[in-house]
């Protein structure tokens, strides 16, 4: 059935709090694209052509949502300049060969990569980037290999996705990705150390967050430019992850997470990008603070992509301010039935879709081991229950 809007128009309408022809659907498919497309994790990280081909095959199996995740998470893993060392810190610079992957991306496990904030602010990330404990392969690779992944690979990567978007008319979910400063500190310090820092040296935590911010947003915007921001539909969007460490009280969220998270979004929007706040955990206690996410910004430039947050409450508090995106549970996609998924999506649409400003999606991401028919059920539900105009 031919639909009244293109995928990009549908997504744009939702971002602008308008009613599209129907609720857009976009299961946030990452690893599952490689798994269902029949390639290994290593190929996903090193061969953009294979990744794009796998994406085409996977979407035939699991359904064709209104956007596609170009998996830019994989783009700079072999670069010399990953964003703030985040990739190395979270993955220990280890690309797993094949499914099943150990852990997830990012994988939170306690470690302390930064002992001394002042030292890092003084000398930068060199000790993280060239660190045999984190990434000994950096010392085993040839100079040609390092140069290839730094300069040639991003161009090949971006070109592969540009062709995909042109051929299949599916906009990208994002062109770049950046990490909010407090999230970065969790990865660098481990949550226990970060909690101690927040209680024992709060001003230092704030100072480091400010220090991290510029570096991170500059590299996120650079990535989006490489991916074709302004030319390739969707590449102008930056996924601004991950909503901070879990379990912040409202006062800690407001004092430590929010200032630089909001400032980062503002910087990117003012430079012409759009910001997809991909914020995990249950942010229901922080909805009042989140009301400020669009403050001072033009309409349609920011979206809240929520994981465990109560979407009905989010719609009530934020529905007139910002587009919401989410949040079919991962466990439902793995262990539930098509009927369960359909019912859950119907409820989400009833709770969130009125008046526009809602994109039906998954929690953080679709698990790689989700049942294909369950992922497809999300897309079917948006068509069945999400029509705005008959």
């Amino acid at each position: 059935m031919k639909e009244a809007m293109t995928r990009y128009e549908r997504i744009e309408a939702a971002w602008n709090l308008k009613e599209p022809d129907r609720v857009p659907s976009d299961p946030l498919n990452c690893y599952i694209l490689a798994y269902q497309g029949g390639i290994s994790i290593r190929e996903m990280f090193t061969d953009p052509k294979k990744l794009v081909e796998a994406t085409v095959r996977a979407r035939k199996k699991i359904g064709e949502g209104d956007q596609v995740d170009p998996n830019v998470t994989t783009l700079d893993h072999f670069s010399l300049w990953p964003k703030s060392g985040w990739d190395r810190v979270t993955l220990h610079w280890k690309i797993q060969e094949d499914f099943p992957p150990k852990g997830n991306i990012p994988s939170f496990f306690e470690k302390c990569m930064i002992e001394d904030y002042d030292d890092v602010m003084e000398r930068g990330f060199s000790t993280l980037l060239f660190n045999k404990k984190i990434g000994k392969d950096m010392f085993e690779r040839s100079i040609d290999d390092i140069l290839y992944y730094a300069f040639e690979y991003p161009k090949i990567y971006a070109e592969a996705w540009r062709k995909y978007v042109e051929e299949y008319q599916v906009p990208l979910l994002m062109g770049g990705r950046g990490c909010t400063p407090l999230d970065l500190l969790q990865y660098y310090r481990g949550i226990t150390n970060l909690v101690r820092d927040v209680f024992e040296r709060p001003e230092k935590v704030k100072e480091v967050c400010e220090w991290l911010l510029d570096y991170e947003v500059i590299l996120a915007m650079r990535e989006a430019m490489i991916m074709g921001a302004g030319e390739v539909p969707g590449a102008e969007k930056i996924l601004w992850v991950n909503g901070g460490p879990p379990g912040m009280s409202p006062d800690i969220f407001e004092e430590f997470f929010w200032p630089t998270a909001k400032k980062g979004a503002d910087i990117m929007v003012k430079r012409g990008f759009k910001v997809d706040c991909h914020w995990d955990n249950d942010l229901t206690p922080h909805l009042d603070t989140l009301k400020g996410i669009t403050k001072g910004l033009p309409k349609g430039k920011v979206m809240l992509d929520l994981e465990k947050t109560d979407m009905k409450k989010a719609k009530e508090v934020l529905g007139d301010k910002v587009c919401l995106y989410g949040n079919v549970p991962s466990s439902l996609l793995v262990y539930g039935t098509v009927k369960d998924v359909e019912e859950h999506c119907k409820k989400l649409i009833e709770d969130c879709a009125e008046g526009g400003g809602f994109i039906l999606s998954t929690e953080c991401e679709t698990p790689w081991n989700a049942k294909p028919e369950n992922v497809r059920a999300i897309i079917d539900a948006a068509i069945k229950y999400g029509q705005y105009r008959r």
Partner: protein
Amino acid sequence: MGKIADALAAIDKDSALSAVKDAIQRNEDPLGLIEELRLGLELVGDNFEKGKYFLFQLIMAGEIFKDASALIVPKIRERYGSVRKRGKFLIGTVAGDIHDLGKNIVATLLECAGFEVVDLGVDVPADVFVEKIKEHKPQIAGMSGLLTASIDQMEKTIEALEQAGLGEEVKVIVGGGIVGEKWVKGKIRADAATTSAVEGVKIAESYIRGR
């Protein structure tokens, strides 16, 4: 309730440690000081369960407890020779999963509650759980996981314990956000499942009391 418990309940590290140091100076019974810390931590747990405190406060309370214990435990050894443990708890994140945030919080709270904790770390295969349970003979084993794939792995690990004849020897508690989701319930045959570190510790305490 004394100053130590009050300060811990208020997540006030400086006051808590200062009160502990003063009490040690006055040569108070160190076992009483530990009990007071536990009382303070219980209040933190209550406030957590009521939604007044969040994970950040819970973690910080555990850290204050550890810092205070470091001052008190040498005094217990001086006076009583050893520190009696309430029970032994073996814990690990199951194979294929390397998330350890929840596991670490539970381990800290268990230590604060007086358990000896054997932490196997992350990505622990079923046969390692079996081997280490035989070696350490804990009363309780905790299996942690965040990923959907961890559910199957928890079940496999429990099967391995049963096949090794350990099913009756050790109580199994599974934990992590994923085990509380309604589509997962009934898929793991553990003695208990919980998404809350505070509840996990209470369950462990109830098992020890019931023995």
